[in-house]
């Protein structure tokens, strides 16, 4: 199976490309490309004249003037690899993660045209779905008739619907603000992190608000450690929440103020 990340061009509302928005410390197209790489033998980034990544480290798939919305990318993928199945993911679902992908794959029915998430069992989420090789012909046909709505095109297919165990996985988000307002009601937290001493030098900043789905300071530190390449491990440090030293396994709450305490040397 191969992977396809749909980048979606410029966001008309935000003026910034959705694919470049960053909810987890890196651009969404980078996160999804890497996510799919863990499950697919080859991953493609669908690009058009509207947008392409600055970096060179990605396998690009050109829309070549088709530009009839996201299905153009799917069509381009099947043009290149007509006998392969594709996992297709769009760059506007910041909570779509490895668990979501595993669940979709575990419910795959390769005898159908597609396997896709559906919150109500009938309405498809066509931009996080597995398209089998046989679906390619139907995508080409739809585009030749100028039918661009992916949800409607999916109605022409035989589809296995999968109800996601976490509805947030398929939630569309189009801006950082939307993500933040959504996440304050949802599973993600906003915490205020202060960086001191060597951590400040490594992070290049002394404070920031971090949106995280970590539930403990230890998990949050691991996220930040990989983001900023901190040399210190949690085992050698302590952590304070709201100006009290607490165990690393303390549950995180929204708006908590955290200080990671590297080895001290007062006196």
């Amino acid at each position, binding site marked *: 199976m191969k992977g396809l990340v749909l980048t979606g061009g410029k966001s008309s509302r935000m003026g910034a490309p959705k694919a470049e928005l960053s909810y987890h410390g890196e651009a969404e197209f980078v996160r999804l490309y890497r996510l799919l790489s863990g499950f697919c033998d080859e991953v493609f980034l669908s690009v058009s004249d509207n947008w392409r990544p600055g970096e060179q480290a990605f396998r690009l798939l050109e829309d070549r003037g088709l530009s009839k919305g996201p299905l153009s990318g799917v069509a381009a993928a099947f043009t290149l690899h007509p006998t392969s199945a594709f996992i297709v993911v769009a760059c506007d679902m910041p909570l779509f993660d490895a668990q979501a992908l595993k669940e979709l794959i575990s419910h795959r029915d390769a005898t159908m045209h597609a396997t896709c998430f559906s919150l109500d069992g009938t309405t498809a989420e066509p931009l996080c779905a597995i398209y089998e090789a046989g679906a390619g012909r139907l995508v080409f046909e739809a585009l030749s008739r100028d039918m661009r709505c992916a949800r409607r095109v999916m109605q022409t297919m035989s589809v296995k619907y999968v109800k996601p165990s976490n509805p947030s996985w398929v939630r569309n988000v189009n801006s950082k603000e939307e993500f933040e307002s959504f996440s304050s009601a949802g599973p993600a937290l906003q915490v205020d992190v202060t960086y001191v001493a060597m951590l400040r030098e490594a992070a290049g900043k002394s404070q920031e608000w971090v949106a995280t789905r970590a539930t403990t300071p230890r998990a949050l530190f691991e996220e930040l450690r990989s983001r900023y390449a901190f040399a210190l491990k949690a085992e050698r440090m302590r952590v304070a929440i709201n100006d009290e030293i607490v165990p690393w396994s303390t549950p995180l709450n929204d708006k908590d103020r955290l200080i990671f305490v590297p*080895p001290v040397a007062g006196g």
Partner: protein
Amino acid sequence: MLEFTDHTIDVGRLARALNDGRAGALASFEGRVRNTHLGKGVMALEYEASAVLARNEFAKIAAAAKCEWRVLEVLCVHRVGRLEIGETAIWLGVLAPHRKEAFAACEHIMSELKARLPIWKKEFWNDGTYTWVDEACGCVLPKSE
């Protein structure tokens, strides 16, 4: 009480501030910047502290000491910012009715402060490099300035 200052610590003023008629003893410790560490020449130090967190930790340390010994008052001032060789980095004073408990509590509190207070020390070596001091690890990882 714990205070931080980026000015020279006036030891005499602090000793005079600890004033209680019940006290027969003031044991104090003054920590100064030494010109060597781990056998290497030190040029200067820079201290950084997380003040609110440090005061909360200090309050716990002082309360525990007051449980163990008859201690009347504990006062500590720590420098932050850049310090030259010979300058006072910390002053700790413990006021108690008698000498033995003042000494014992002062020694104990000082050890706890060094191990627990969120204060970090950057050592600038004579060779132009610096190190964030990590006492527990004892390792030295020089970085170029």
